[in-house]
């Protein structure tokens, strides 16, 4: 997945000279997760560079560059550290096109590794997507595999709107099925075959990972893989929808599936209250009420900060997901 991200950036740097890549440690060193490895050497320090340690400043200069015709792609080293840039993102970047009557806009991309499972404790584990989905003007995507990591990132860079791209850092080196003692790599995974060339995964389209009739399971990021295992453990036949895009989300795919199955379980890592699962649950019951045979339920991180040693008791496990699916089937 790290290579897929790298390849997306490399393709776009080659294709469009308005693309610049920068952030903390992304230049010479190639990023603490190695996603920008080799790009400075290949494309030059004027296009791929290190910045001061200042997320607010990074977002602000990206704003200005985007306004002045470039396509900056900046990295926030961990999603937990995006908050010093929150004002620039939600009050400024998101609103520029609208506030200026369409005279100015800033089509920037902000990439950030998110989520838990790497023993990161409070501040290297958070998955703050819902805090961006409430802001009109932003598009929000969340990748889960090498294939969509590259395809969504290219779509984001090519978008005329600002896009926040969350990458599940737990899956950088391989998928995670919920068992911390197993560390599979991506090799052999069907979604790990990443063309070297430019391709896109369109923003707004979900991916149907698994088909079934009993229940619809909706997830994004790392949880997509954990849900595969949870579904297996539940013994039920489920549609598994990898949402991929949170704003805008794929209404058709979700509604079609829930109308078919009549049941829905939503899974995410972030705390439950006001997580993006709340929006999904609210929307699903609004749109599919008469088809529902059980309440829409959520399996999420607890409403607490993210712990370090006990993170496996915090993140949704296949067992919890299986239990929720069984609960939905019982109605």
């Amino acid at each position, binding site marked *: 997945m790290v290579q897929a991200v790298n390849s997306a950036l490399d393709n776009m740097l080659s294709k469009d000279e308005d693309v*610049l890549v920068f952030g903390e440690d992304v230049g010479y060193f190639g990023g603490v997760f190695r996603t920008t490895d080799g790009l400075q050497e290949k494309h030059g320090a*004027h296009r791929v560079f290190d*910045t*001061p340690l*200042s997320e*607010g*400043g990074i977002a*602000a*200069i*990206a*704003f*200005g*560059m*985007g*306004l*002045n*015709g*470039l396509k*900056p792609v900046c990295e926030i080293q961990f999603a937990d550290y995006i908050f*010093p840039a929150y*004002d*620039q993102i939600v*009050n*400024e970047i998101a*609103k*520029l*096109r*609208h*506030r*200026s*009557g*369409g*005279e*100015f*806009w800033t*089509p920037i991309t902000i990439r950030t590794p998110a989520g838990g499972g790497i023993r990161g404790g409070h501040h290297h584990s958070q998955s703050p997507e819902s805090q961006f989905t409430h802001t*009109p*003007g932003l*598009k929000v995507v969340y990748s889960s595999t090498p294939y969509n990591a590259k395809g969504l990132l290219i779509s984001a860079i090519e*978008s*005329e*709107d600002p896009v926040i791209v969350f990458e599940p850092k737990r899956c950088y080196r391989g998928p995670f099925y919920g068992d911390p003692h197993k560390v599979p790599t991506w090799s052999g995974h069907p979604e790990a075959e990443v063309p070297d060339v430019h391709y896109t995964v369109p923003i*707004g389209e979900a991916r149907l990972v698994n088909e079934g009739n009993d229940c619809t399971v909706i997830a994004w990021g790392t949880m997509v893989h954990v849900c595969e295992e949870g579904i297996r453990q539940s013994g039920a036949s489920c549609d598994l929808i990898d949402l991929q895009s949170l*704003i*805008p*989300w794929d*209404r058709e795919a979700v509604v079609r599936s829930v109308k078919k199955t009549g049941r829905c379980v939503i899974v995410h890592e972030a705390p439950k209250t006001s997580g993006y699962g709340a929006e999904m649950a609210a929307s699903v019951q609004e749109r599919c009420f008469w088809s529902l045979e059980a309440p829409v339920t959520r399996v999420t991180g607890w409403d607490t900060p993210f712990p370090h040693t006990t993170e496996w008791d915090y993140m949704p496990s296949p067992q919890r997901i299986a239990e929720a699916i069984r609960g939905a089937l019982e109605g």
Partner: protein
Amino acid sequence: MNNDGCETPIRVPSAPFRPGESASFEEWSYSPSDLMMPDPLSCEPKDTIPHSTGLIRVLGDDGSRSGDWDPVISDSDLLIGLEHMVRLRIFDDRMMKMQRTGKLSFYMRSLGEEAIAIAQTMALEKQDWIFPTYRQPGAQFVRGRDMVSMICHCIGNVEDNVKGRQMPVHYTYREGRYISVSSPVGTQFSQAVGVAMASAYKGLDEVTITWIGDGASAEGDYHYALNFASVFRPPVILNVVNNQWAISTHANLASGSSTFADRGLAYDVPCLRVDGNDFLALYSVTKWARDRASAGLGATHIEVLTYRAGAHSSSDDPTRYRPSDEPDVWPGGDPIHRLRDHLISVGAWTEEKHRDLEGRIDSEVMAAYKEAVKFGDLAQGPYPSSDTIFTEVYSDVPWHLQEQWDEMNRLGGD
């Protein structure tokens, strides 16, 4: 009570004068001959130490111009500057009156600060970017914006190019490279550095100018701007407009330091402190900064010392927190009077011509106003269609917005 914190366990500074007291300032000792002009292309930041603590002036108290910073600018250009300043003041007065009658929801004047954006923009090139706050509308006159269109924005009618989305005075004027004003203070300062970095990246001779208030300089964006400018040295001019007040908060509470100008030195950026009511000095420092920027030498940090002579905004009543005579006794004078008197003293202008000018501009503003209200005003409408709520949120209209848009129309949005 005395809210000077010296007697309290925690130190809380205060404004120098409060209502009931009578303001008094020492006469300025700064004179146009105080400070030499370093060569812009060879100047090192530390060479500007005197300029960051003194005050760059060209117009003396007697209306004469002199000193090293006296710029090359023709009297006819100065008359254009004077005219824009008069225009802005009359425009502001008209808008303020209209605000009182409900034609606008809100207004902010540039009273006493008219010279700043006008002189500084005149010192720049057409391709340069203006990244203003709400107190630099005057730059638009320099860039040729039609006043009718400005009024249409302020009164929020169907011709408002902001489409009724932001409050009055939040102008945007792409044609003039005048970037959309935003309410959160400070954000433009760091963004401007990015605008300038893009110009540098593209190898264009484009300079970006931006401003921040004495109050807003306490935001993180101030630090980001200076620091990124110091690292990447893009062609940007970073002005702190010290008008001594941030709503009711005196600059004493914005910073414990004596000048704002010298802050840039710690970022290895040259720093100038300029008399903000002196048109010529403003013009001159801005040319100097542009020369450096254009030569690839990076940012200049400028403190523009002035005084907010009016209320913060139409919602504000400054007599509650400062003596009503404070604006009058402040020694910086009035920027319009100072340039007018200078031009008169050199024979390029007369009192009578000035009165005529005021009369002509008053008619111009009234005419523009009458033209603008034809398209509606805030009190009566028509407003921009409620459809403008949904457009330009994104480059396209995603399905969830379309759904809500349809819902609004079904329920009888206009």
